[in-house]
């Protein structure tokens, strides 16, 4: 799976969990500071990524990921 596809699918999950238009989500956006994710939504994002990509991530490390771009890199490590 290439970088572009992973990014598109990450943004899709983020848009669904945070109830946002996917076009408003930039790769450098911070989940909390720019997109307004709260602590519950951060957990939902981790669960959403695991479901989308069929992977199981280290939760503590996954929760420390702050931006869309970092999430893409982090998930790629599991693919």
């Amino acid at each position: 799976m290439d970088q572009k596809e992973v990014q598109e699918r990450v943004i899709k999950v983020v848009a669904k969990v945070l109830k946002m238009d996917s076009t408003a989500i930039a790769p450098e956006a911070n989940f909390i500071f720019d997109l307004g994710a709260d602590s519950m939504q951060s957990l939902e994002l981790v669960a959403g990524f695991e479901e989308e990509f069929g992977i199981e991530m280290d939760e503590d490390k996954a929760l420390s990921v702050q931006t869309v771009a970092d999430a893409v890199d982090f998930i790629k490590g599991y693919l």
Partner: protein
Amino acid sequence: MTSKSGIHEKNLEKIFYPDSVAIIGANKVRGTVPHDILDNILKADFNGIVFPVSPKEKFIAGIKAYKYVLDIEDPVDLAILVFPASVCHMALEQCGQKGIKSAIIISAGFKEVGGEGVERENQIKAIADKYGLSFIGPNCLGVINTDPQSRINASFARKMPEEGSIAFLSQSGALCTAVLDYAQAKHIGFSKFISFGNKADISEIDLLYYLKDDPKTKVILMYLEEVSNGNALMKAARDVIAGSGKPILILKSGRTSEGASAAASHTGSLAGSDEICAAAFRQAGIIRCSDIEEMFNIAIAFAYQPPPNTNNIAIITNAGGPGVLATDAAIHDGLKLATFADKTTAILKKNLPRTANINNPVDVIGDARADRYNIALSAAFDDPAVEAVFVILTPQSMTEIDLIAREVAKVSSHYDKPVYASFMGEADVQEGIEVLQRNKIPHYPLPEDMCKAVATVYKFHQEKHDAGDNIASFDDVRIDNARAILEHAAAQNEPFLTEDTALKVFAAYGLPVMESYLATNQEEAVQFAEKSSYPVVMKVMSQDIIHKYDLGGVALDLKSATEVEAAYNTMMNNIRTRQPDANIKGVLVRKMIPKGQEVILGVKRDPSFNSVLMFGLGGIFVEVFRDVSFRIAPVSEREACAMIDETKSSALLKGARGQAIRDIPAVVEAIQRLSQLACDCPQIKELDINPLIVLEEGRGCFVADAKIMINHTVKSS
């Protein structure tokens, strides 16, 4: 003071009196900190503009929300950060870019959690420094200002307190909410209410200086868990008290003896952190309280009433027992029962029942109604010998509790003298207590607490509070000599100075030492003894022997060459037998100091307060009797005298039970010289002069034994 103190001084005003506030990280979820802070600001009727900043909300509570603080077109005076700790640095960076100079960081997850949290805290401090921005927190409850000019409740407390003249500062946010609830029940108001959390930027020192000049604050209360810079706290407290007359009451937790156990000297083992803290607070004029209740008992006495000019009080009671209890407590705490003028007793005699006690304490008898209290109160206030009136009430079936409370408020309002009340009981007296509290009459459930609080106020106003600048500096000291000796010992990794070397350090600072010599053989010992004149003392000197008495390394009162020779041989045999591997430097020989009163002087380093001085009853039982006092160096002559006076053994120096009066001025000077030595030479880790032998008046005092432990990690500045 820190390098940012000037910046904080300027920026603090906008923390308490902002014209506009941005709540960064606000949301719409009730019961969360970001929501409730915005809600509190709106409910408190803040006298300014509010800008919610939220990454995803367009409106919160009907107010337009901004995605970023940079999107706000108008100027913002104060930013309140409620974002999670992981993104606070981003929010603070934008605050800096926006030109905001004042912030409150509520968020937790910084130094208090260790690891990454420490890095985060350093990061936000660096951002604040970069932009000349000042912030309170992080990890705090927030800030409240009840002044109608601002009325800002920038906290997530449950309620806005009443307006008042007491400022409360706390390192613990959770304690703040408990205090707010406690105070509300007693109608105690606040001028400023500040939870300062991790004090990463603005500290309690900066806040003390701000409150010094705050016209709305009369009394400053503080809860502290750690004293990170004790000397700065003492200086700030002195400046506040001397400069404004405002009392500072501190509740300090953490009364542990940690740190004392590993000490190598008497001073080290006696000077625990709590004793040092207590001494430092007393020295700086800070009133230390043992619990919240005591703190507020004293605070309301300061805040609600003028201070009594003398300690002559009148007690008016409808119950004999509580009157006696109050009398006992008053006398115990240093107050006096005023002797009434004839006119006063005549009025009381004429208007009270025959069974009433018309002398002080006045007993208006159990069936007294409001009219009798009125008569007694007016008579007491009118008496020129009475400076303060204590009103005690117990609830009998006919007692007009509510009316009597109103009478206390009404009558006392016509006088400049203070009044205090103790309506004893709980349920029945509640209505009267409410009347007293609403009328700012300090109320105490127990007369004993009333006496203690008023005595504290009286003593505070009697004490001379100066800025701590009256420190004598002896210009005959040879600082370079002392430092050279200490630095040499540190370079050689010596753990302590043997007495012969320690005496040279003391001599350089003008401390009274007898001339002494170091003999390296028996012949030299005799030669030096003859030079010193008999009787003499001999002590073995070795870096390997710290307790020379225990090993038979000391010989006293040697009156002839024969005795010196014998003592020398015995001493060498003792050491060879008991500690054969000890490397002996020589034997110290000096004239025997005449008999006198033995006292101890000491120095210890403390991580918060630096140089701690100790004075007390000397000799080998110093740890048993613990009759010691402490001060933080440098000390003034007044403080040195107070150190002596605080101990029970001062009576021995003053000639108790027919003993000779000792040369106290010589001890006072020795304490001051030791204070200067401790401040000048950070290489001294701990120091004991035990004993310092104090001779009769005019004959001085002399160091008879001494020990200086070396700190190898510091250099002179």
